[in-house]
């Protein structure tokens, strides 16, 4: 399939994915609301340019990564739950697993314990059939991605992502260290707030 055909198919599908994202957002909120502390729940359909960019990705050996991107790209709809404390992340994950079927549950963190970078809990969940748009001619994906993060993890992730996208040249080593340092600060802030939350919550 050529890139332009793929782009056309996805562009036609995009409004349905937007509608689906909204339904997923509401569904997640309804199952979590009143049971656990959440700052916000959001969901979005992957934009057409980002989808095309991802669909054309290649492996390190130069081969194409996705031979059927419309089926294989699992974050065509992505949702995010932001919460206050690290302890909330596990509680939210527990509720998510009760109401959604999953095929992946990952605690994303840097490979080495001496490195700092992206932190967050990721799920690949089945899109519940009752939320899918009913148009038969549109092939709706089977899965969506869910990220659960603290406010600090979210803030770091957003700024880092933005910076990486807007910078055409690779970052200098010291700049990379500064970004890792800011991740360490966010990590430290999460540890402090989580400890204090547990201390005062258990005392009350």
């Amino acid at each position, binding site marked *: 399939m050529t890139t332009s055909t793929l782009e056309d198919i996805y562009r036609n599908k995009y409004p349905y994915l937007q509608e689906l994202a909204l339904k997923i957002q509401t569904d997640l909120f309804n199952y979590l609301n009143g049971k656990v502390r959440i700052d916000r729940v959001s969901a979005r359909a992957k934009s057409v340019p980002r989808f095309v960019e991802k669909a054309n990705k290649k492996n390190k050996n130069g081969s194409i990564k996705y031979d059927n991107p419309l089926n294989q790209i699992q974050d065509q709809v992505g949702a995010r739950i932001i919460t206050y404390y690290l302890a909330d992340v596990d509680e939210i994950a527990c509720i998510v697993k*009760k*109401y*959604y079927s999953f*095929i*992946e549950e990952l605690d994303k963190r840097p490979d080495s314990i001496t490195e700092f970078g992206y932190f967050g809990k990721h799920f690949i969940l089945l899109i*519940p*059939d*009752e939320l899918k748009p*009913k148009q038969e001619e549109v092939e709706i994906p*089977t899965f969506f991605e869910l990220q659960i993060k603290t406010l600090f993890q979210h803030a770091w992730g957003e700024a880092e992502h933005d910076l990486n996208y807007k910078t055409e040249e690779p970052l200098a080593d010291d700049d990379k260290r500064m970004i890792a340092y800011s991740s360490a600060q966010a990590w430290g802030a999460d540890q402090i707030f989580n400890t204090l939350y547990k201390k005062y919550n258990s005392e009350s």
Partner: protein
Amino acid sequence: MEIEKIIGFISPAMKDAEKIEDKDIVGEDINQNSKLFKMLSDIFNRSTNECDIPIKFVPIKGKQENPIRDEIINIDKTFSVTACSILVKILSSLTDHKTKDGLVFFIKGNQGKNSKIMIARFPAETGITINPTADKVNFDVIDDVFLKNSRKYKAAYYLSKEQFWIGYAIDKQVNEGRGKVKEISDYWIKQFLQSEMKITSQRGTAILAKAVRATLETTEEQDIKNELVTLSTTIKNVNNKTVSFESFFAEMNLSDETKNEVLQKIDKGIQKTKFKIDEEEFRTNCNYLVDILDNGAIVIAPAKEFNDIWLKSYVAEDDEYKYSTTGKPIKSKYQTRVVR
């Protein structure tokens, strides 16, 4: 639906065997012109309706990995006796002599643009044959008759568009042997396919309970109200049982009127979907039962104990009821509003 090829195996019951050798698993391509091929083709074509339990593979250690799914993908790529025999070996290692030997067929074909792989297991049964002659009938018992309409018949199919993560299964024993002999219900979906229901028991039950709650709030029919109120006490009888939104009402001996009114509040596309009832989840969603009277009174109690706490007697004038209870007051409070 177009069928490419069918391969059949004898799957011996070898749960107690120390090791299963390659020679224990015998497989063969099925001749495309045979009666058996025609019969299996019909099963393949009807599977969209017959395989009514949506399942999904369980990921191992949170990663997108499952050994049975890997084999299904491999079977899709290289449909051969060698590729299929790996799954037959696994099935034989889980099959005891009580479950008996079986015939296992792998069918590869297409459904629309999708590649479709189906596995069907016919159990060995005992049958009787007759040989009538002019003056008498001879009866004979034969072992190893393989029947599709046996309760022990199992099947599942997978589609490429769902990356072979989702399956659709038949397992008429899914509600059998709960408790002590749970392996009967777990044999096909949980143990062999390493799968679970596609819709979680909590989600399925929450959808059902919310529809029941909404119906109770909106229906004008007293009979429907009465039936739905009994659910708070009878739901425990079907805890952990596999039902569909449709079949639940027959299971609970509820009327078609009640069924139809509740089903109106559930998405049509999932009404036949099967899931396991979770009593606790039902109670979470239908925790308190509230009767609102036209004189301003609000009568409330935990749903499952409502009829024990409140004695409700009919006063034969203007459809009025008298509610009475006896208890020790522990608290009085004002509320700004009551949600009706």
